[in-house]
């Protein structure tokens, strides 16, 4: 069973010629089949955790370890991490002019699976996944994220999640900027992947709203660069009622 282990992770960024530590000792274990919600106020370091796990060059790991099934994730390049099974659904997916969605998906699936998917089954696979996410078929010929609405971008991220079948899915504020219908559609997509039991999910969010659709096994409150409290789904209810104030005091 795939396990992602994060131990005492410290991460810094360079800003204005100064080094700023954002993650200050994160410990977390996510097993295949589990869903962990990471909740926290703005600026607590949630997204930094997501991007550090994916290997964004802006973030420097200063100490700690991250392993996936014992393999050192921090030693891997960004594409190696993806091929090892780490998937990051981004809060702000990037426009890639000149590259069509269909070309992008196929290139990506080829890289992740280690061989080009057979064209006939692939076309069907993509078509069905798009239908489930209520994505217009014409979408396939558009350039990646170019001119996409907020909702389209997030559906496109979840489409990739469904097609690439990672071991660990990190969803960075996938709920932000979505109306209720889009939130439901996107959540259904995430739940389909979770129901396979083959993915560990790290659901990063500011709001409890998405937890009505995606039920977490564990909830962690993130504050000041580390996990301040962990609990079950009931912790989310407490946050809903009381907010993050208790965790941000004395900042």
């Amino acid at each position, binding site marked *: 069973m795939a396990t992602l282990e994060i131990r005492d992770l410290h991460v810094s960024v360079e800003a204005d010629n100064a080094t700023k530590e954002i993650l200050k000792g994160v410990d977390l274990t996510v097993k295949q089949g589990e869903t962990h919600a990471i909740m926290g106020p703005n600026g607590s370091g949630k997204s930094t955790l997501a991007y550090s796990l994916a290997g964004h060059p802006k973030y420097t790991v200063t100490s700690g370890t991250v392993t996936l099934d014992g393999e050192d994730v921090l030693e891997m*390049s960004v*594409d190696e*991490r*993806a091929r090892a099974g780490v998937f990051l659904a981004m809060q702000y997916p990037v426009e890639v*002019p000149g590259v069509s969605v269909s*070309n*992008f998906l196929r290139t*990506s699936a080829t890289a992740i699976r280690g061989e080009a998917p057979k064209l006939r089954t692939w076309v069907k696979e993509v078509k069905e996944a798009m239908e489930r996410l209520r994505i217009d078929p014409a979408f396939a010929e558009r350039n990646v994220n170019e001119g996409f609405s907020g909702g389209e971008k997030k559906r496109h991220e979840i489409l*990739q999640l469904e097609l*690439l079948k990672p071991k660990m899915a990190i969803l960075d504020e996938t709920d932000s900027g979505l109306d209720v219908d889009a939130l439901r559609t996107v959540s259904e997509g995430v739940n389909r992947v979770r129901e396979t039991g083959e993915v560990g999910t790290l659901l990063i969010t500011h709001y409890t709203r998405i937890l009505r659709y995606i039920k977490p096994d564990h909830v962690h409150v993130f504050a000041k660069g580390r996990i301040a409290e962990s609990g079950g789904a009931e912790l989310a209810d407490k946050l809903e009622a009381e907010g993050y104030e208790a965790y941000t005091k004395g900042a």
Partner: protein
Amino acid sequence: MADNIPVGSTTEGAIQVGGDHPADARVSAPASYDVADFPVPHGREEEWRFTPLERLRGLHDGSAVADGGIRTEVYTPEGVTQEQVGRDDPRVGRAGKPVDRVAAQAYSSFEKATVVSIPKDTVLTEPVRISVHGQGGTAFTHQVIEIGAFAEAVVVIDHTGDATLGGNVEYLVGDGAKLTVVSVQDWDDKAAHAGQHTALVGRDATFKSVIVTFGGDLVRLHPRINYAAPGGEAELYGLYFTDNGQHQEHRLFVDHDTPHCRSNVVYKGALQGEDAHAVWIGDVLIRAEAEGTDTYELNRNLVLTDGARVDSVPNLEIETGEIVGAGHASATGRFEDEQLFYLMARGIPADEARRLVVRGFFAELVQQIGLPELQERLIEKIDAELEASV
């Protein structure tokens, strides 16, 4: 992408209505066949300000002397003729005069001009091929491609090897004819190549020019369009891939002095490596008498690495309001680290990510060019260029 101009690059643009002709003012001396009518450029003239003169290998100051070290071979399909003629042949110099010192030097220095004639009503099923291969030498060449009324032809001019070449080409496009010309600059790294490609487009004729520049130390080409009669159409496509240390300059001029003519310009370039420098100048002049003109020009550049520079200057000048349309656009964008991260985060290795983006950038243009055989070759070349320096 327009707001994302790499450091050291410029994207200027102007639309002028009425007034003097800045497009004419770009040349520091009146057009002439005689090199003596042009002063030796010092580099600050409008038309030379982007060009590193020292890398012209003497083409601009008279010190380059022809030594026969360039071989030109012409393959003509059945029905097509070629002749070697002197400067006094009425077809030579007919499309337009040289407008700068290097073009005039080439005109004053060539021994014989090559005239390729496609007779009227002839529809070719295979291209005319002209191969210009440099063996380290210097040459001044003049080619005239003449296509008769209602004939249709494709001409491919290939430039390879190492050379110092001042080469002018003229296209005389008969009424109702369709001429497509592909000029490929696939030179070795040291070559210097400058020249003026002037077309005279007949009544209801279609002229399509495809300029493809990959190689050379310095390439500076000047495609110019003149219309002989109404109804002419010019499509000017360009594709360049500027590497480490290369200077590739494409200067276009479309002179709309005739009513009801059209022009469409699309040039796209990718740059990578230290001191890669691409220059694109697009001058379009719509004169008062050119009512019913329809023109559009576009230049896009994709900068793949730091240290590359683009100067892109579209310039549209309009002297009559009685036109169908006129517009221009220019933009220079970078291949972003964020794009690279996004693609790599989906398992795609860095070099493949770059290839995906560059192929995508050129895809629409390659399709517009519409010659299947050339399309494949272009994609292969683009991949090879990426391969060589990633």
